[in-house]
Every structure is written in structure tokens, then in C-alpha cells.
């Protein structure tokens, strides 16, 4: 269903959550995006409309506890730290400081399995995509493209600027809950040194 471009993304997330709760095992899948929610079900449109119309309006979704997940990040492994710093006209340390101040929020997942699109980037840190995308970027790369930010869940090709690398497994296919950060959840970073990164075990 299309939700109109003026609907804030919080509302999309909240409605998705309500739909999951109402349809339960009748829901095959659901894909929230910027201004839409795709519902996969074998119910007819009429049945769906009736069910959703009878839904109580939830003002708060249970998972919205304002918990902020803290992710380790190693900036020394950021392939484009120089480029982003130059573009922002900041020293490395200032850039890192600003990036650490940010609170980011997972908007939706796409591109590759588990790839997180997020908002919350300090607009001074925005940086245009690379002209020549890299053939491969390691999993855990924290990227910036324009004013979008995100985390590469898998090693994959990509044209985003890489500010740092997190050793946290944001996407683990072997876990029953494969995403570390659900859509709608917030996260921020804390800094680790290269040595800690290398010895990281999660």
C-alpha cells in the first residue's frame, strides 16, 4: 500500500508493526519502505481491508523503547576517511568526533541481504559517491553516499565512501533473528583501535 509522501517514516514502521501483529500467521512477508508498505499474504484485498480496519490504533510500538544499540567502529580501517575529511573540510579527529556524536536509525533494508539504509548523518559529513565503485568492500563497512548512510552487511561491490569498519555482525544468516538492528531501531558508534578490531570476537 502507498502511504503518501508526507507520512513520516515512524508512522510506516509503526503501521508495519501493527500489521505484523494483526495478520500473524496469515502474513507471508512485509516490506516497509520510504512511503509504502508491501504486504504479502494469501488473503484477498477485501479480507485484508476488513481485518486492518478493525485494528486498534497503536500509538506506540513495543520495540520503540528508545534503546540505542552501540556498535564498535574502527576508523583506521575506513578506506575513504581522507576523502570524507577533505570534502567536509575537517581534520580526521574532528570528523571522527562528529561521526561519533551521530545517532542513526535503520530506515529499511535492501540492496543486498541485510544492508541497512539509515538516516541521522550530520549533513556536514555528506559526501558524493565514488566515481568508480569498488569491486569489493568488506562486510561491516560503514558507508556514506550523499546524505545517506548505511552498513554493508556482506562483502559486495559498492560506491559509497567508507568512513570506518565495524566488527559487529549486523547480518548473520545463521541466527534465527538475522538482523542485529531492526528497521526503526537506532544505533550509534563507539571507537575501537585497529588492534581491538583484529581481536574482536562476537
Amino acid at each position, binding site marked *: 500500500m502507498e502511504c503518501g509522501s508526507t507520512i513520516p517514516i515512524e508512522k510506516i514502521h509503526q503501521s508495519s508493526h501493527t500489521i505484523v501483529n494483526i495478520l500473524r500467521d496469515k502474513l507471508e*512477508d512485509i*516490506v516497509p*519502505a520510504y512511503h509504502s508498505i508491501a504486504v504479502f499474504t494469501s488473503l484477498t484485498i477485501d479480507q485484508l481491508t476488513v481485518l486492518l480496519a478493525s485494528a486498534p490504533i497503536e500509538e506506540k510500538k513495543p520495540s520503540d523503547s528508545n534503546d540505542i544499540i552501540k556498535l564498535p567502529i574502527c576508523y583506521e580501517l575506513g578506506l575513504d576517511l581522507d576523502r570524507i575529511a577533505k570534502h567536509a573540510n575537517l581534520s580526521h579527529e574532528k570528523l571522527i568526533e562528529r561521526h561519533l556524536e551521530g545517532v542513526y536509525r535503520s530506515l529499511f*533494508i535492501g540492496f*543486498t*541481504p541485510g544492508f541497512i539504509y539509515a538516516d541521522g548523518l550530520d549533513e556536514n559529513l555528506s559526501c558524493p559517491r565514488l566515481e568508480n565503485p569498488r569491486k569489493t568492500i568488506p562486510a561491516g563497512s560503514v558507508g556514506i553516499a550523499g546524505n545517506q548512510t548505511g552498513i554493508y552487511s556482506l562483502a559486495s561491490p559498492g560506491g559509497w565512501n567508507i568512513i570506518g569498519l565495524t566488527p559487529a555482525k549486523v547480518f548473520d*544468516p545463521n541466527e534465527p533473528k538475522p538482523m542485529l538492528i531492526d528497521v526503526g531501531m537506532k544505533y550509534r558508534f563507539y571507537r575501537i583501535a585497529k588492534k581491538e578490531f583484529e581481536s574482536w570476537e562476537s
Partner: protein
Amino acid sequence: MGKLKLIKTSPWAAIQDFGRFGYRRFGIPQSGAMDREWMIAANRLVGNPDDFPVVEIAMMGMKLEALESSFIAAVGATIKINGEKRIGGLSLSIGDVLQIDAPDHVYAYLAIGGRLSAKEDFGSVSTYPRAGFGGLNGDVLKVGDVLESDNANGRVKDNSIPERNNQDTVIRIMKGPEWDLLKEIPDSKRFEIDASSNRMGVRLNGKIDCDYKEIASSAVVPGTIQLPANNQPIILMSDCQTTGGYPRIGKVFDKDLGKLAQVKVGCSLRLKTVS
């Protein structure tokens, strides 16, 4: 137990089943056989349930050696056992060499009696190499790999094979959310399959006039017809992403996706809007 070792393989020969469902919310593509009807036909030729994993073959042929007695069938390619051309569901004895020629159309399917063992990720063994899902080790088949099933026997349950054409194939579509951007109905046009088509999408050569505008990324599925700024449609297929930002002008009927997948590069098709 059926057991076959790969002696020669094609750049794309990979285990597929019906695909993964219920994980789009994690950005996980559906995957699965590009031509589901032919996958089913192959399974029925060896007496398997319709949804058992098969080997999907594209581009070139392959050669296998039976390490144990096995029951096999292929749909969409000529097969030879020890150099002799054969058809139908076939028993192999230890040491027999099975040769599968390059697909007649685009995809051919090899079924082996019994359930093929493979790695399961998110409820499916369909191979999706980009994320290392399914298949034998999350990858396409390589020389030296061994395919194993839990049954040496099989019997032909049904030997009918749905027809596939290469010229003027008619693909039925329904209108998509951005249909109204179109300035003309695509039905009267003839499109050719572009060489860059793959398991993610079939690109069509031929234009549909449209008031192009980018849309905010939203859900797409196999069968979604996207119309990028160059007005040349892309029909998303099994391995497509879960969201996209191009106008979704229509959707191919699920039943016609197999037919579409089998149209060779340079061959033509027509779209038929059904409301």
C-alpha cells in the same frame, strides 16, 4: 543413494528449488528456479515431489560420472549416457558418464531421483552466490563437486513438458502502481531480449514512451516491470533485489515467468495487458 561427480561444468550450474519466502524484510531475494514449470517437469520425470531441489544449467553443458547407481532426467537439453543419446527418466550404473549439452533455450534442469543434499539457508537450498546462500557451499557447482541424493531409484511419474518458444512469445502482464506514467500501451510493440539479462532481471530492447520520474524506493518482486529513464523495460526475475526506485509500470503473471526466462537473447516477445 544417487551420487554423481562433476567432471565438466558450465559457468552457471547451480542447485535451485522454489526459493525463499518470508525474508524480504531482511533484503533477502526470493531466488529459486527461473523456469519453475520445467523444474517441476524434471522432478516428475524421476518421480520426485515437485518442490525437490534440481540443478539449473545455463550457457554451456556439463558432464558427470555416476559414483553410485542413480536415476536422472533432464529437461531443456539433449543428454547422452556413455556417448549415446537418450530421453526420459534414466537409470545410471556406477561408472556411467552422463553428458548434458548446452540448454536448447536458456535454462535446462537436471533432476536426480531422491532429495539432493544441499545447504539450507532461510528455508531454501536455492543457490545465491552473492550472499553464499544454498547450493553445496553457497556457490555454483564446480568440477569435482559431488551431487548426492537419498535415493538410487526413481520412476517416471509424468513425462509432459510445457512448451517454450523463441519467437513472438506472448507474456501476460497486469498494470503496476506507476502504470499511469505511460504515454502508450506496450501491447502493440515487439521487444527483444538484451544480452545483459540474467537471473536478476530480463532487459528488453525496445522503448515504452513514458513521463519518467524516479519513485521513492519501494517493494519489487520477481515479475515487476521497471521502466528506467531510458524507457527500456527491465523485468525483474528470481534473484532481484527486494526494493527499487524505478517506476513499476506492470507485473508479469507468475505463470508466464518461466516462459519469459526461456526466451533467448535477441529473440522477441510481446507483452499483453490483462486487466
